[in-house]
């Protein structure tokens, strides 16, 4: 039996004295786990170069994070794994053929410019990986856009090594689009978006682990589906398959599950998340249908990212027991009505 001397000072801290098992690093680890199926699919579909690109973006992200924190004399934040997640997500946004130095440059943009210059984790106002993708896209359009590798091209054989158009571009053109089966399991595109199945698997894992709520992916994808179905029907195409190609094509699934759900750059309240996700869906659809660029998902997310502070202000929940002006009036009215009735009845 251990006795305590009266002088011993115990830990005195504010309540609560227990904590849920959720930690920042555990959440980031879950995101990494959720990305692994898509990474594996990427390696199978585009070959071992995927691993090289991913290793470079992760390494460059981690090094940039470490150095920038040091230069800015802030505490080290490598332990939260957020830099690893940023690197991984950036890699997923790049074609497997990208020169490695460009991939590294992208990481520096993501970590230093988008994240650390605004204060580090939790402070960036746009998604770092998306900003880096857009910077790369604008700076090196040739490397980013016209070098899509066909699925399984790395194994050689009779398939064309390099296709000139993404599936969605092919859809708009003269055919040659892959089948829906291919679209679901293995298609050309960026590293992370080639296998819809793996992305859905990862997304479900995140929801099961309660890392993300389903509201953003569902509203984002749902909005695109509704828009595309109506557009398809109006423009007398096969509306259903048109919609499915759009849902499985481009970066929609990857963006909706992994990038639009980024905590820092999405609204806090459920109402806000709905507005944000519907906005993403609408902008994506409009760009895809009426625009020239292939950047529907990334532009939509980054535009909505910028609106997040305003959405948060507009959708701040009403504190418990506070009666909103309108409702109060209605209540007053109904109370008066009740009074009148009572008077009338007596």
């Amino acid at each position, binding site marked *: 039996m251990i006795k305590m001397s*009266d002088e011993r000072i115990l830990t005195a*801290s*504010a309540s609560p004295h*227990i904590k*849920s098992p959720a930690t920042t690093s*555990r959440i980031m680890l879950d995101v990494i786990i959720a990305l692994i199926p898509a990474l594996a699919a990427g390696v199978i579909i585009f070959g071992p170069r995927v691993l090289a690109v991913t290793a470079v973006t992760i390494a460059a992200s981690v090094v940039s994070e470490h150095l920038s924190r040091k230069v800015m004399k802030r505490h080290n934040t490598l332990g939260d794994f957020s830099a690893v997640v940023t690197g991984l997500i950036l890699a997923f946004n790049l074609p497997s053929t990208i020169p490695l130095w460009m991939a590294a440059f992208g990481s520096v943009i993501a970590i230093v410019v988008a994240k650390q210059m605004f204060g*580090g*984790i939790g402070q960036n106002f746009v998604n770092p990986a998306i900003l880096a993708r857009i910077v790369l896209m604008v700076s090196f359009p040739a490397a980013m856009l016209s070098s899509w590798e066909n699925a399984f091209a790395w194994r050689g054989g009779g398939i064309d090594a390099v296709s000139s158009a993404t599936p969605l571009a092919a859809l708009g053109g003269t055919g040659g689009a892959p089948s829906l089966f291919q679209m679901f399991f293995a298609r050309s595109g960026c590293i992370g978006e080639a296998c819809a199945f793996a992305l859905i698997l990862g997304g479900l894992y995140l929801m099961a682990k309660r890392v993300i709520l389903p509201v953003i992916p569902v509203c984002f994808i749902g909005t695109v589906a509704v828009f595309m179905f109506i557009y398809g029907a109006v423009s007398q195409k096969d509306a259903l398959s048109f919609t499915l190609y759009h849902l499985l094509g481009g970066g929609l699934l990857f963006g909706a599950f992994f990038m639009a759900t980024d905590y820092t750059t999405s609204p806090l309240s459920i109402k806000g998340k709905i507005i944000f996700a519907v906005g993403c869906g609408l902008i994506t659809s409009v760009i895809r249908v009426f625009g020239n660029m292939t950047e529907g998902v990334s532009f939509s997310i980054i535009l909505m990212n910028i609106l997040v502070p305003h959405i948060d202000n507009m959708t701040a929940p009403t*504190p418990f027991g506070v009666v909103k002006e309108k409702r109060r009036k209605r209540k007053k009215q109904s109370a008066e009505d009740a009074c009148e009735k009572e008077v009338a009845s007596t």
Partner: protein
Amino acid sequence: MGQKSSGILTAVKKVRGGVRVSHNKNTANLETVRIPTPSKVVIPMRMHIGAPCAPAVNVGDIVSVGQIVGDSTAFVSAPIHATVSGKVTAVGQVELPDGNISKAVTIESDGEMRLFDGIEPPKVETREDFLKAVRNSGLVGLGGAGFPTHVKLGFPQGKIDTLVVNAAECEPYITVDYRECIENSWDILSSIKAIKELLDIPNVIIAIENNKPDAIEVLSSIASAEEEGVDEIKVMTLSSRYPQGAEKIMIQSATGRRVPPGGLPSDVGCVVMNVCSVAFIARYLKTGKPLVSRSLTVDGSAVSEPKNIRAPIGTNIGGIFDFCGGFKEEPKKIITGGPMMGLAVIGTDLPILKQNNALLAFTEKDMLKGERDCIRCGRCAFVCPFSLQPTVVEALIKADDIEALKASGASICMECGSCSYSCPAGKPLVQTMRLAKYILKEAGDKNER
């Protein structure tokens, strides 16, 4: 009102937010044991919300159990009684668990626990008699807040239509309310009847979390045992999600009504009483013995033999731990109350108070890790039962924006701890909310209505 076939109600309105905590009700099946009479008790004069009492005895006086040792003329206050018989050895000061200094009466026990001669069952026929009796009993809210019960019950006649008996016990570890339901269920019933009749309250709802099936069974059997078969006493089960036992949350669950910011339960026609307080009233009406002891759950990773105990008020915390086999590992934190809202104390040389319901001791491995940067995940806002946004409040404090802070509603925070509990970055958000409340108070604004 959602009604199950068994006649047990479920919550009228589902409550927002909250967190799932591991219950750790390790002592649920342990009968309450009375600790041996301590050799000395230190009875603080401030064990309730309101005016502290002034000592009514002098050094050298011989006192017996139930004799008044401190009283006040203020309305919001409750008299304090001797909890052991013996000799007053000091009338001085003591440090309370919250760090404040209070006047205190020290009594050296003669080990006999002689009852005070003047103790007899009070004559209660009217509302005024009843309130006077409750005041004389020294009863304060035993759930933890310590608000004088006679003040709570002193509402204008007819203002209250629902009495909610709070047996939720949503804090982890604590099992005293549960034991009260099991061990003293008839006290609960007779007290409810008295309150109902004398204070003219038509509806009574006993609210309890659904993780205590035994207690639910006992309570529903007493609720239906009422002779006339009037079903005015109902048992309502709540989902076992912290903080179902919080007063405003409970009122919403039971009646669907929302207490306005800065308001009291009586503003929406409700009064909420802890089940131990309710049971005590019955015993007082029967015997006239005032509040001199209370039951506590003693548990935590550092405690050798977790127990439910009944101890005289003013007993030394260290002595209670000794009775529970001492510590099996060195304690790093000792809490009076539950782990979500309880108070961490700095040592064991402190007296237990009327409103304490648990003593928990934790070892090194239960200590919280340091704080990291906010990742804006929104969990704090998502779990807040009052729809507040602690992370936004933190930013507003940094920005020194009083107006926005006022609009954020921070002043209604009840400090339930759900935000800090769920924060992955381990931020002390309750502390942030307290700071916000303090700033708003300083700014001369209590955000009333």
